[in-house]
């Protein structure tokens, strides 16, 4: 019986092209009890086509009668011999399309018979949804072409997005189409059906119910979805002795426990950087990671926009101080940045508290003390209009101190407020995981449900989580009877689990999510699951008495209960449309400070001879969950510009002590490959081998080991890339591990790293222009004073050959004052324009394909005391200890005098009447002359066939409005010409000019800091025309007279004059 059940598939799931309306009915509950009863009552061989038939559903009988030939039912008797059986099988296959072959995706060869409402073929539709990320969710609008989600944008109505997005949201579309995703339920590696899982889960549930859940444990990450949280609560109510543990490897317990220390309870902090004049960050990368980072970035940079006039009014800027051990995105845009070791942050915070009269004391070096004095003076200048933030990896004490400091500065209620936690169930994660491990060792756990996390890979190495799951050779048994894992990939943890359920992507399943301020969004799917995947909600439901309850029904029931009075259907439609559940933002909670900095125990003095090893989430793959995402792997990390690997980041002085260096091989060179020294690191009883990378600006004696790499079972893209820092991360030293310098040993080997920009020096060229606010006020035209543009009359044509560009004159303005190198534009461009991923080997040859790159320059290195800077970070110079970093996004400059156009022998790159430098892929024969002649080197060439033309998933993912380029063709940024054309055609139909803001390029739309503005320079009222009229406006290398349409606004920093002169 079981074998037959296995051969027949139960899921009557439609194909991927299903109309969205059907999504709600995907999970039709099946009455399993009836099925089982029927099965039991039958004897002998029985054949059925679906479980519904077996269950004798009357409506199904009717369907059968109507659709099948009259004689078919009469053949279903028990005396079928083999020959007849085969005949019948053939007939049924031909007649009805047995659901047994449902694994093959259904393919519709005819267009829609009835066009769905609101859908015009070739016109995309947009749906609001959200992506959860830790204790935050970013609201999204997802573009859908005939039912295929193709591009993710931020939802302007959502508080954590405001229309912008970040690299993780942008790249998550690739996760959906990842061909390496787990695709079905498995038991010990064998494919199982969903109903088999439900049966097993129900059997377990029955057993657990008798013991009141004793031995049942659930391990999750941070849960911010009210729906899943309610489901978990329901499970815990059903099994009172069961326990829920949480482990989120890259988010510290510091923020949580700091709130408890300060206020006696867990709180959530919501900042309003827009309202702050002075911001001090204590090792916090609040602009690029942590809850609300996209929103914070927008707010922060709104205070850094400068207008045309150079006078004081309307030209004020906020000021950012950053104290951090390792350069971050936030630190790179600081007005004052102080590199301090991790262990020196808490004394710094204590000293700050002391200087504000809160008591306690902190020991600082004289230079730091002086720096702090300047900061304190500045902070006191703006009571209630400052903000102090602490990093996610900082300990609870620092967070508690920051709460006290903010209270003392009068910031609570103005630049920040507290709410109840966004997390459904805040706990101390390290303790929670530790407790689980202890209980497993004590034999107290019989059933473990691991939801979405990968503890075998991420748990501290001293917990040795794999040993908890693995078959014990000595005891000849397993510690846990049944381990069930639900995750999107069959990962390091899955291979030790009995059951593995493939988890649906957030674009495939119903759910909800809470943003950093508590706002709830309904997560609506855009596509039926591509594979036989299920949501967390469904897995949890399998352990309850309602195993067939779909997430959709559960969600609607919950929301209906919360909104009883209104017209629910109308409300539901509006909520789905808006992407936010109105009025769900958490209200400010009143908290009372119960914390006295003086009561803190004295700090253990840390030895400055020791090295400090810090563990940080990787800027691209985070804690490792994005390891199989090619876009993120190939994304140059903001500060290091490394791709495809992590490296042990070493401060320049320490590198000099350890005699670490690089060699630049000729293949790729500065733009590609760096051979780096390999070091062995022996920490907390474990050892790891890593490539070293010298990072200017890192505090002396600090070595950063980014998490998330060295995965053993991540998929084709992510497996065995970089080194695994979790191997040396113990529960005692979760974030910082002090150790003597001798723990590092050079192995003598070198390792090739793919770095897209090694040289950091501008060589005195007019590329990235910066000034101080004071300098800017004194001379608002400082940019053009430094430039050497050719004179207007330097032409043979007397200006008569100028093309007038009468109608539209597209232009882009990039405000360098607002760019912190977060890379959202790069991934957005990759997603919009079907840009290929080329792999580490090709990046090392200098062949990455990004149409927009973000260049990173260090500026104060040239005036260093050692004289001329070499632009080579492996050559130690004192200026590298704390250089000023600047970022510059470089898309195609769309020159009016384009050097590329003149040299193309076949006219494959030509100028449009609107001033775009167009690429004609069909005409291009690939001489690469244009790229040679491009002074900005923005052109990208398909040296090989970089696109994956075979994988069917990627065919679904691509933007149908953009050509997929083949080998041998040049490509480059075209200002998203498909978006321009669409808007122009729409405007032409109405016989109107294209409205300003009607066209958003992909990079502009994603940019959280509004640094990129695109528009018509002919329209004097357009935003871009106004920006271009600013005195700060300049073009790169103006002396070449290429006259780029992409211009930049010079970066202006706002340093504290007192600290400047000190």
């Amino acid at each position, binding site marked *: 019986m079981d074998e037959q059940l296995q051969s027949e598939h139960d899921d009557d799931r439609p194909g991927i092209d299903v109309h969205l309306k059907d999504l709600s009915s995907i999970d039709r509950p099946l009455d399993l009890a009836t099925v089982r009863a029927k099965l039991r009552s039958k004897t002998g061989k029985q054949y059925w086509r679906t479980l519904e038939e077996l269950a004798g559903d009357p409506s199904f009988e009717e369907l059968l009668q109507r659709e099948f030939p009259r004689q078919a039912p009469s053949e279903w008797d028990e005396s079928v011999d083999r020959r007849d059986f085969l005949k019948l099988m053939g007939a049924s296959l031909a007649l009805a399309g047995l659901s047994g072959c449902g694994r093959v995706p259904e393919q519709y060869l005819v267009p829609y018979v009835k066009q769905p409402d609101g859908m015009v073929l070739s016109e995309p539709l947009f749906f609001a949804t959200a992506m959860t990320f830790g204790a935050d969710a970013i609201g999204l609008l997802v573009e859908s072409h005939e039912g295929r989600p193709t591009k993710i944008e931020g939802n302007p109505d959502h508080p954590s997005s405001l229309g912008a997005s970040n690299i993780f949201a942008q790249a998550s579309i690739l996760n959906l189409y990842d061909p390496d995703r787990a695709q079905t339920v498995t038991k010990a590696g064998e494919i199982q059906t969903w109903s088999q899982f439900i049966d097993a889960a129900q059997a377990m549930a029955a057993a657990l119910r008798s013991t009141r859940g004793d031995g049942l444990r659930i391990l999750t990450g941070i849960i911010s979805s009210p729906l899943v949280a309610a489901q978990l609560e329901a499970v815990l109510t059903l099994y009172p002795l069961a326990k829920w543990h949480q482990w989120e490897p890259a988010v510290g317990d510091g923020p949580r426990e700091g709130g408890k220390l300060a206020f006696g309870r867990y709180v959530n902090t919501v900042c309003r950087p827009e309202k702050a004049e002075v911001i001090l960050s204590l090792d916090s990368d609040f602009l690029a990671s942590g809850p609300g980072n996209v929103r914070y970035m927008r707010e922060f940079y709104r205070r850094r926009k400068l207008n045309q006039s150079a006078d004081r009014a309307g030209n004020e800027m906020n000021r950012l101080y950053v104290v951090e051990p390792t350069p971050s995105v936030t630190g790179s845009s600081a007005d004052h940045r102080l590199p301090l070791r991790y262990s020196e942050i808490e004394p710094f915070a204590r000293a700050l508290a002391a200087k504000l009269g809160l008591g306690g004391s902190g020991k600082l070096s004289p230079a730091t003390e002086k720096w702090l004095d300047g900061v304190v003076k500045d902070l006191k200048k703006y009571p209630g209009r400052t903000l102090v933030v602490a990093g996610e990896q900082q300990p609870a004490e620092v967070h508690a101190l920051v709460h006290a400091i903010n209270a003392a500065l009068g910031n609570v209620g103005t630049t920040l407020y507290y709410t109840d936690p966004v997390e459904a169930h805040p706990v101390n994660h390290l303790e929670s995981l530790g407790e689980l491990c202890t209980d497993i060792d004590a034999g107290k756990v019989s059933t473990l449900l691991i939801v979405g996390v990968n503890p075998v890979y991420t748990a501290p190495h001293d917990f040795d989580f794999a040993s908890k799951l693995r078959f014990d050779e000595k005891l000849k048994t397993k510690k846990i009877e049944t381990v069930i894992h639900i995750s999107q990939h069959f990962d390091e943890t899955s291979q030790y689990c009995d059951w593995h359920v493939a988890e649906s992507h957030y674009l495939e399943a119903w759910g909800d999510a809470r943003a950093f301020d508590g706002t709830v969004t309904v997560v609506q799917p855009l596509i039926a699951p591509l594979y036989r995947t299920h949501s967390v909600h469904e897995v949890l439901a399998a352990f309850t008495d309602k195993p067939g309850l779909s997430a959709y029904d559960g969600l609607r029931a919950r929301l209906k209960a919360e909104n009883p009075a209104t017209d629910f259907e109308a409300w539901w439609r509006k909520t789905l449309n808006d992407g936010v559940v109105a009025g769900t933002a958490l209200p400010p909670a009143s908290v009372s400070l119960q914390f006295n900095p003086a009561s803190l125990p004295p700090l253990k003095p840390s030895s400055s001879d020791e090295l400090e090893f810090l563990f940080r989430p990787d800027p691209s793959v985070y804690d490792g969950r994005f390891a199989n995402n090619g876009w993120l792997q190939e994304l140059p990390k903001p500060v290091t510009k490394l791709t495809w690997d992590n490296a042990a980041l070493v401060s320049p002085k320490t590198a000099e002590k350890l005699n670490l260096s690089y060699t630049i091989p000729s293949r790729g060179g500065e733009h590609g490959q760096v051979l780096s020294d390999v070091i062995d690191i022996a920490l907390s009883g474990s050892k790891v081998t890593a490539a070293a990378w010298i990072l200017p600006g890192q505090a002396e004696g600090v070595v950063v080991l980014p998490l998330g790499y060295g995965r053993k079972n991540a998929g084709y893209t992510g497996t065995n890339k970089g080194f695994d820092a979790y191997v040396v991360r113990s529960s005692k030293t979760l974030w910082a591990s002090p150790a003597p310098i001798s723990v590092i040993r050079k192995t003598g080997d070198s390792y090739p790293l793919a770095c897209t920009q090694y040289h950091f020096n501008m060589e005195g060229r007019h590329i990235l222009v910066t000034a101080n606010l004071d300098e800017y006020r004194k001379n608002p035209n400082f940019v053009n004073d430094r430039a050497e543009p050719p004179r207007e009359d330097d032409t043979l044509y007397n200006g008569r050959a100028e093309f007038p560009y009468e109608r539209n004159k597209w232009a882009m303005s990039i405000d360098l004052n607002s760019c912190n190198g977060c890379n959202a534009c790069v991934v957005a461009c990759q997603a919009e324009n079907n840009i290929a991923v080329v792999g580490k080997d090709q990046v090392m040859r200098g062949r990455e394909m990004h149409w927009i790159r973000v260049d990173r320059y260090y500026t104060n290195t040239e005036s260093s005391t050692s004289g001329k800077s070499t632009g080579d970070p492996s050559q130690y110079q004192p200026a590298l200890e704390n250089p000023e970093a600047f970022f510059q996004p470089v898309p195609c400059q769309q020159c009016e005098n384009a050097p590329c156009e003149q040299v193309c*022998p076949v006219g494959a790159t030509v100028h449009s009447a609107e001033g775009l430098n167009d690429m004609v892929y069909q005409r291009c024969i*690939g001489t690469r*002359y244009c790229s040679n002649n491009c002074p900005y*080197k923005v052109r990208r060439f*398909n*040296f090989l066939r970089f696109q994956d033309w075979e994988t069917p998933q990627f065919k679904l993912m691509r933007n149908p409005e953009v050509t997929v380029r083949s080998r041998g063709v040049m490509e480059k940024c075209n200002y998203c010409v498909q978006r321009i054309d669409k808007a122009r055609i729409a405007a032409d139909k109405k016989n109107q000019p294209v409205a300003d803001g009607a066209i958003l390029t992909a990079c502009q739309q994603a940019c959280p800091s509004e640094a990129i503005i695109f528009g018509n320079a002919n329209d004097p009222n357009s935003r871009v025309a106004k920006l271009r009229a600013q005195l700060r406006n300049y073009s790169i290398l103006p002396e070449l007279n290429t006259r780029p349409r992409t211009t930049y606004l010079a970066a202006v920093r706002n340093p504290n004059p007192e600290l400047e002169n000190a």
Partner: protein
Amino acid sequence: MSAGEPPINSSEIRRLTPVLGPGHTFGSVTDKISSIVLTRPTSVGWYVGFLITFSFTALLTIAMGWLFTKGVGIWGINIPVGWGFAIVNFVWWIGIGHAGTLISAILFLLNQKWRTSINRFAEAMTLFAVACAGIFPLIHTGRPWMSFYMFPYPSTMGIWPQFRSPLIWDVFAVSTYGTVSLIFWFVGLIPDLATLRDRALTKPKQIIYGMLALGWRGSVRHWHRYQSAYLLLAGLATPLVLSVHTVVSFDFAVAIVPGWHTTIFPPYFVAGAIYSGFAMVLSIAIPLRKAYGLEDFITMRHLDNMAKVMLATGLIVAYGYFFEFFMSIYSGNKFDLYLVEQRIHGPYSHFYYALILCNILTPQLLWFYKIRHNVLILFLMSLVINTGMWLERFVIVVISLTRDFTPSAWGRYQPTFWDWATFTGTIGFFVMLLFLFVRVLPAISIAEMRELVAETAEAD
């Protein structure tokens, strides 16, 4: 001028180093030259040489097959270095070809009798070098099957090539050059082909040479037409010697890349081309005269003259290097200045020093009579100069691209196995064609040598 060298143009030097060895008659010249093709048994050395060069040709075929299968990414090129070995080799081969045309056309017009015994194989060398050069522009494109877009054919879409691009000028310059060189060479061959037809011992040879001889009977009318045609073609080929490399240099001079964008390139490229071309003629003539005992026809006088041409063009090239350098400093252009610094101190500086050594310092030895008359040293020096000229193109093409305007995009270049396979493959192909040439066609013009016999006899 060193001791022991007789004064130039004295009758003494003519006597010491005549353009034709003493004692030759019409018959002996014809016998000697045609025997290589018709009667002498093919030596083992020829077979060995042919096999080696043929295997390199096979390597070229494999390299091209792999290239067409995978794409130009099998080479070391990247962003920013979009052009690598393919363009370096193209410019180098085209340059080598120049000596042949110069010898056969310009020296013919200038009535330089010493050209007679070397012009035939020099022209053949030109053709083969152009064939090797012509491979590269076709295969270096990303989509070689679309390369015909570069020709102005009547497309149904009404699209023309983009005539502002120097690459289009290249197409015309190189194809014209190839065509004129081929016709010039063939016209010069006609009387000799008739000689071979008349002397051939087997029927197939008689038929093939007979067809190629186009019915040449040696009548006065034939000779009259022949002389006019040859003179006209020489006149037509003469400007090409100057124009082809000028146009090739525009590929660089027209671009804005520092190190490319300079007005000195056209004369400097032409001089360099003749320089490397004469070096290649020497590299071929010296083994050829040794292998087939042609010392009487290719005498020390020839070698001496060619060495002098090399010295002269080498000095022009040195002048070019100096002024390239000087103008960068004099102009104060920061990009050019940086490039000069890079050439001297940068990661590729050893290439630059090697180039100076090969192209400027080594040829200074040619001031010395004894060196010009030492066949072995001349041969080695010709190889050094050819290497030097290849390095020059590498320095110009690659080093300029590695460090141009935007420091964030700076990179480097390293050739791959397939770069080397293609490069050595074309050398193999070139030498293989020469091996075939000496076996099937007279390597020295019989008709012109007979003229020389007559003239020498008159002079005596």
